[in-house]
């Protein structure tokens, strides 16, 4: 071990450079050990006190959200020729359904305009033609898996990218019973294997009703690790969530969360963040984007989804990321794939390739649509049908990992990949 000129950091380095075997032996990390893949070379722990660490919120749009509607490329003529019935009218059209231009090429449809304040404040960045480069899977289940696990085309990976970040970083709060949660019924792959993480679909309602608490603690203390951790962490989490007043929480800056499940999830995350209970990562799903038929980009199914979606994110931005009480936090949105350039025979779209990502927060270099636009004419489409992927989702997530999460373990969190940062984050 080489001596560092400043001397005092040598023990820090030794601590940080644990190999896998030592990692497994460190008792308190035993849960975290299972998050690490067998090919783990060396872990360099992100120390909470000497690196930047935002709270991270991961939002997953399930079903393959149509990026060509979410952030429509009105500047590409093939957008209109390929989508005669479902394209959003141009910003300069007279139709009341026209989009709002973000620049001279991309626009937001009417039902996404709730995101304009965050965009214009420079805290929302949009990435177009984004997707998964090293797989061309159009299977929901595979594409979701590959994205969430941070490695395409590999069925041996059993953990999520965010889980591996948490496993390779010391907790922001060493005493926190819960570092991360998935606001879903069952643990989503993004957080699978994360230490001190639970699926809690309704944090505002996570209580315990049993006189057998102590006996169960003892019994589960000897149980199979995932259940033991769920029991132990669950009990501790119940106690700490009980201390938060979800019902009477007043969002800052006049933000208003609607009553739907997604908006309420965002609200719960805000409450937990404000409560400073040690939660440093949250994952939320928003499903229903698999619009094969009667997509309804205007006034229909997708419009309703986009309205709810954008309003919930806007409320969260207003509440948590604004003003003097803003928090060090970054939110990212991804989807497993986008959808076809051309509409199908049922006024919808089928599974495609590139879609859209969003990044939102005070540290985002926002107010722009970042795109390496490959075009929508048939000759440049992948398989003659789909927008090509020119930005990999890992390019964005890896930049987030390094710059906002202070975690240098790229090769563990996004193995076998050399990310190309796009300047999304400060």
């Amino acid at each position, binding site marked *: 071990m080489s001596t560092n000129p400043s001397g005092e950091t040598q023990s820090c380095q030794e601590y940080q450079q644990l190999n896998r075997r030592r990692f497994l032996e460190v008792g308190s990390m035993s849960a975290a050990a*299972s998050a690490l893949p067998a090919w783990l070379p060396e872990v360099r722990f992100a120390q909470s006190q000497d690196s930047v660490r935002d709270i991270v919120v991961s939002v997953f749009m399930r079903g393959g959200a149509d990026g060509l509607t979410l952030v429509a490329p009105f500047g590409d003529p093939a957008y209109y020729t390929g989508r005669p019935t479902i394209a959003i009218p141009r910003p300069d059209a007279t139709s009341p359904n026209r989009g709002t231009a973000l620049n001279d090429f991309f626009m937001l449809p009417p039902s996404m305009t709730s995101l304009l304040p965050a965009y214009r404040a420079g805290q929302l960045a949009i990435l177009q033609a984004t997707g998964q480069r090293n797989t061309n899977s*159009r299977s929901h*289940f595979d594409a979701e898996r590959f994205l969430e696990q941070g490695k395409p085309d590999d069925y041996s990976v059993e953990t999520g990218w965010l889980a591996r970040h948490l496993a390779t970083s010391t907790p922001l709060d060493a005493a926190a019973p819960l570092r991360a949660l998935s606001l879903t019924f069952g643990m989503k792959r993004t957080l699978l294997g994360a230490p001190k993480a639970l699926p809690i679909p309704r944090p505002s309602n996570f209580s315990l009703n049993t006189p057998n608490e102590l*006996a*169960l603690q003892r019994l589960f203390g000897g149980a*199979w690790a995932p259940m033991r951790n769920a029991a132990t962490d669950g009990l501790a989490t119940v106690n700490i969530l009980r201390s938060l007043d979800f019902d009477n929480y007043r969002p800052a800056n006049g933000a208003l969360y609607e009553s739907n499940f997604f908006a309420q999830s965002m609200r719960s995350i805000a409450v937990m963040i404000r409560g400073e209970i040690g939660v440093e990562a949250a994952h939320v799903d928003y*499903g229903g984007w698999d619009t094969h038929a009667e997509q309804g980009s205007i006034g229909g199914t997708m419009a309703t989804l986009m309205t709810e979606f954008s309003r919930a994110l806007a409320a969260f931005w207003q509440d948590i990321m604004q003003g003097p009480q803003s928090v060090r936090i970054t939110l990212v949105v991804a989807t497993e794939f986008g959808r076809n350039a051309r509409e199908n025979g049922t006024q919808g779209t089928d599974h495609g390739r590139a879609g859209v990502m969003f990044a939102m927060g005070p540290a985002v270099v926002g107010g722009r649509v970042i795109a390496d636009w490959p075009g929508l004419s048939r000759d440049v489409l992948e398989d003659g049908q789909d927008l090509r992927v020119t930005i990999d989702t890992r390019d964005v997530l890896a930049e987030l990992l390094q710059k906002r999460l202070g975690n240098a373990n790229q090769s563990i969190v996004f193995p076998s990949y050399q990310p190309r940062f796009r300047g999304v984050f400060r």
Partner: protein
Amino acid sequence: MDSSTSASTSTSSRRDWLRSGAAAIGAAALAAPLLPDTLEAQSTRPPNTSRIGGLLNQLGQQAQWRSTELRLVRRITQGLTEAEVARVRALGYDAYLEEQLNPSRIDDSAMEARVQASYARMLALTPRQLSDTGPAGTHFFDHVRPRQSLTAERAIFSRRQLQERMFEFWSDHQHVLLNDQAFFATIHHERIIRPNVLGTVGDMVRAGMRSGSMLSYLDQVRSTRFGINENYARELLELHTIGVDGGFTQEDVIGLTRVLTGWSINFSTLEFEYKAGNHDFSAKSVLGLSFPARAQATAGNAGMDEGIAVGEMLIRHPSTKRYTATKLLRWFVTPTPSEAQVQAVVAAYGTEGDVKAMLRVVLSRANLTKAPAKLKRPFHYAVSTLRATGARVNPVVDVRRDYNTMSFSSADMGHDIGNWGTPDGYPDRADFWAGLIVDRWNVVNAHLVQVDNNSPGRAVIDLASFVGNGTVDAFIGNVRRRLFADEMSSELEVELRYALRSGVTNTRALNALRLAVCAPEFHFY
């Protein structure tokens, strides 16, 4: 705890309900769980470096499982009961399995009477009649709730238990979203799935291709030569037959989409109907099967032969055999079946996919003896609790208001019967479900283990049958026998004795019973 998933849905719109269900979409159904690496490591690691707290790891969950017959009962029922235990002891492993593989040999008249009493009218209706039941907007209470209730009730009370396990397996495999399909799901479950659960893969695939509900759910009925939609064709390949790695390409998906144009429903009767006028008669190919261009027909079954031929090819496809065999092994035996295990089941497939023959191989003594304990999914956990405790369930009076323990309890633990948001069905992965432990404890205490409750829909235990003569030994003996078939851990016994250290009262007995149900080992089978 807000256990009123039911209450919230009765006032929100169908779309909102759908959305919150759709939010529970998960990853691949065939993903191996987190566990195996850790498990193998635990089994070879010396005791003093094992997990804190001792040896009750997942392997240890079955440290007290000695009997192979009981392992069989745990795996092929929705929860062991004294009656099933007695049956397997009377018949022996092979004869008991054979009996369960042939449900018509099992007298299920009590279950049939229950079905007649509550569901006979619904089950006798045609698709159109079902669709017309009740004014618009009541389908949730007319169809969704009863379907969930019937599914749970059969799992709890039927003596044809393997048939119910296989129904659960196949209804996940060819899953339709209940909230979306409502009355149509009844047709799908009763006419397409149920008759074939212990039949052949071939019949299941053929039936599925003619399921009005499936064709409607996955947009097939709208996919025509005037405008195609690839949703169903993709899932037919990826989920119902050859699997995501079965060797198909995007071109095959498009080809199959065009092959299947015309496969639709009659919009009056809502029965399956092939519409030649919607069929694309141009040349196409799917997985090496080529169809030449032909003249457009507008009547009869011209062109239907293409879909039939592809169906037959898929049924016999090596990937379908493998995919089915692997899924059955995962359902009954282990999350990581060996190549040898898979091949043995594939060998039993034959040309048609003989489910019984495959199950005899899947459920061999050799397989079950070394099978790691499996985590019950919430539905299974709820059902097994009601079965083991011998609960009776009060009939529901007001379907809009009463808490129907049989089905709501499962939903409150994250497993809303029939409402997994995507066509791949609920995951059967321990790492997906393991985190929801607190939810299970809450539901046990609030709903599943109850006494003196005459409210409609509520479960009621005969606590006196557990208390017996009032001694601690009697109570523990009853718990050990009825919940665990006499294979209960000493750790749990210690806790039960401690809970009853001041003697058995009704309150203490009830809490002790809840403790036994909540204990780690009751979550496994």
